[in-house]
């Protein structure tokens, strides 16, 4: 009997590291996987915002959750509506990374309220797009202070003209970031600001002009997580918002910086698509460079954009690229084409792109 007790004791001690390992391995926890598609939407389809739900889709630690929208309803993001948002919560209140679209602001707050009653104190915008900043004003009214790169603020205050050439409307004042910082090449990769709250250390790392000129990635040191927003994507082809200062070249630089900042186990959270590790960046980077090189070769030969589009350069990648649509690949090719020559410079976070 005594021997049995002893054995049980030894086995309990032996099991302890396993339990600890199991607790660590629990994260990231995928609660609701993103949709795989394929998705088709009829002509004239209008996004039914009332049907879109915002839910906790991934848990990165006991107090760091990811929010995302329903699949199959939002043609802009069919795998999951909106962009990913993150919430760090605890006794110091809530820190949000990005908001969902304006249309689902209340639902986003309701989703946060399923796991915390804490006040929303900090909101950081990773880039300007409405699926990441659409509910800024709503959360500012909840008490959040909005942080972002100075260039994002400039982009928001002086938006590029609309596609039809008309001036874009002025932003709601409450939606404009209240606190800003800048990217500086000399301190590339270093946090502009570091927040110490709820047992986490959170770095806001300003990025070089990449997806836009005002990108920020957000690192959670303890959870070993980096929110890498939209310069990487694995649903649809790469997209650089050139009018807001982005470039495909800059996105390659951004990928290279993540190579330096992340370790093999760091979970990288893109704004869309599935969670990845840094090894998953390699084929993406290779594709960017391959396409950019091929497009340049054709343009250097004097080919027009329609010629280059007709060459179907993405064909080798179509099978492995989820969310592949003609629109997505044509946009990618056109951007690569525009970057080959006469690519306008970034001024105040914006680039005056030629109109087609």
């Amino acid at each position, binding site marked *: 009997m005594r021997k049995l007790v002893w054995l049980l004791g030894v086995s309990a001690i032996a099991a302890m590291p396993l339990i600890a390992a199991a607790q660590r391995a629990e994260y990231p926890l995928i609660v609701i996987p993103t949709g795989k598609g394929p998705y088709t939407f009829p002509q004239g389809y209008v996004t039914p915002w009332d049907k879109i739900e915002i839910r906790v889709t991934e848990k990165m630690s006991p107090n760091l959750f990811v929010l995302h929208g329903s699949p199959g309803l939002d043609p802009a993001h069919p795998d999951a509506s909106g962009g990913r948002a993150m919430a760090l919560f605890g006794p110091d*209140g809530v820190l949000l990374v990005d908001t969902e679209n304006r249309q689902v602001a209340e639902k986003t707050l309701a989703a946060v309220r399923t796991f915390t009653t804490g006040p929303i*104190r900090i909101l950081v915008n990773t880039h300007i797009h409405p699926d990441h900043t659409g509910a800024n004003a709503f959360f500012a009214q909840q008490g959040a202070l909005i942080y972002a790169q*100075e260039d994002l603020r400039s982009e928001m205050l002086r938006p590029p003209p609309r596609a039809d050439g008309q001036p874009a409307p002025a932003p709601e004042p409450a939606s404009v970031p*209240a*606190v800003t*910082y800048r990217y500086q090449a000399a301190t590339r990769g270093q946090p502009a600001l*570091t*927040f110490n*709250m709820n047992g986490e250390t959170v770095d806001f790392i300003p990025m070089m002009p990449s997806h836009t000129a005002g990108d920020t990635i957000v690192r959670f040191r303890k959870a070993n997580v980096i929110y890498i927003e939209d310069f990487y994507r694995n649903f649809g082809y790469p997209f650089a918002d050139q009018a807001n200062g982005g470039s495909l070249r800059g996105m390659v630089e951004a990928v290279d910086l993540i190579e330096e900042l992340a370790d093999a186990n760091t979970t990288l959270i893109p704004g869309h698509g599935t969670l990845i590790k840094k090894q998953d960046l390699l084929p993406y980077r290779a594709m960017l460079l391959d396409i950019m090189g091929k497009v340049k070769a054709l343009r250097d030969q004097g080919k027009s954009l329609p010629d280059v589009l007709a060459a179907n350069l993405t064909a080798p990648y179509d099978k492995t690229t989820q969310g592949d649509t003609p629109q997505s690949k044509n946009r990618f090719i056109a951007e690569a084409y525009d970057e080959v020559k006469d690519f306008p410079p970034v001024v105040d976070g914006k680039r005056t792109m030629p109109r087609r």
Partner: protein
Amino acid sequence: MTRLRPLILLLILGLGAGAIAHGRGGVGVAEQASPRPPGAVYKGQAFTFNKITDGVYHAVGTGNLVVMSNATIIEGDTDVLVVDSQVAPSGAWALREELKAITGKPIRWVVNSHFHFDHSHGNQIYGPEVQIIGHEFARQQMLAGKSQDSPAREFYVGGIPATIKNLEARLGAATDDKARATIQADLEIQRTFLEGTNAVRPTPPTITLTQSMTLYRGSREIRLLFLGRAHTAGDIVVYLPKERIIATGDLLVEGTSYMGDAYFTEWIQTIEALKQLDFDTVLPGHGRAFTGKAKLDHWQAYLRDFWAQAQKFHAAGTSWEDAARQVDLRGNAVNYPGIRAVGIVPNHGMRRAYELLDGKIK
């Protein structure tokens, strides 16, 4: 006694010129007073709020409570930013209470100009609704206990018990009623000072920066700038470009600044960077507000003089203690009338210079 002299001087002068108390009934009038921290007991006002422009004030201690450093108050459209949190929770609490007479807006931002005890040891009164911002170096120093266990704090605060004993002895010996009343008042101030500093739990900034950030609060633009190592390795300057005002902490003060954590040559460069900013008014961490850029030149000249002499003493093999006794800074007396004798007190600046010259500090 030489150790006590600066302390008593601080008490009498309240570390600044603000001897004009408003006398509006003390802190008891505050309706929504938060719990009064230990030592937050005093007569009249603890601060004089010198209005610099609309919504910008330089809060200077009156001497009724030992606060040891000035605060700069910047009102935005919905909230208030305060530069520095004084020497103890008592001082920070007094500031917050007295500020209610000036604005109904809440303090939502506190900036620690640097990690020293007299600028950061009131942080603990602010809850998670307040963003406490400092340089990353300031946070690391405070986490390592360097704001509490420092030669500077020992020099300026360590002597309080002795000061109290001294005052008690003088009180016992005094016969004249008026003299007794004065000593009694000083004694009360010393006792609350001790009580206040004993209640300190060093609380580092929750948000840190290493370069710069800008706050937009309505029409108010507030820039927090790190311009280089100087008074410490993490001094933040608060700059209001539209109002042409800077708050400098101890990077630039009315008189001479403490040099025990200084980087002398870089300090001269950092002042040079400061000159590039467009400003008219300087709100220092100690002393009175002043205008113009002449004091930037004065302080650079002082630092150059001190550093050159320190290098000579060091090269000659003089001990740092002797060098501190022999250094002759009287050439700067035209700008700093307080300099009357040879030598420097406290001698921490010379020890620091030697540590830098010996390569002990990078």
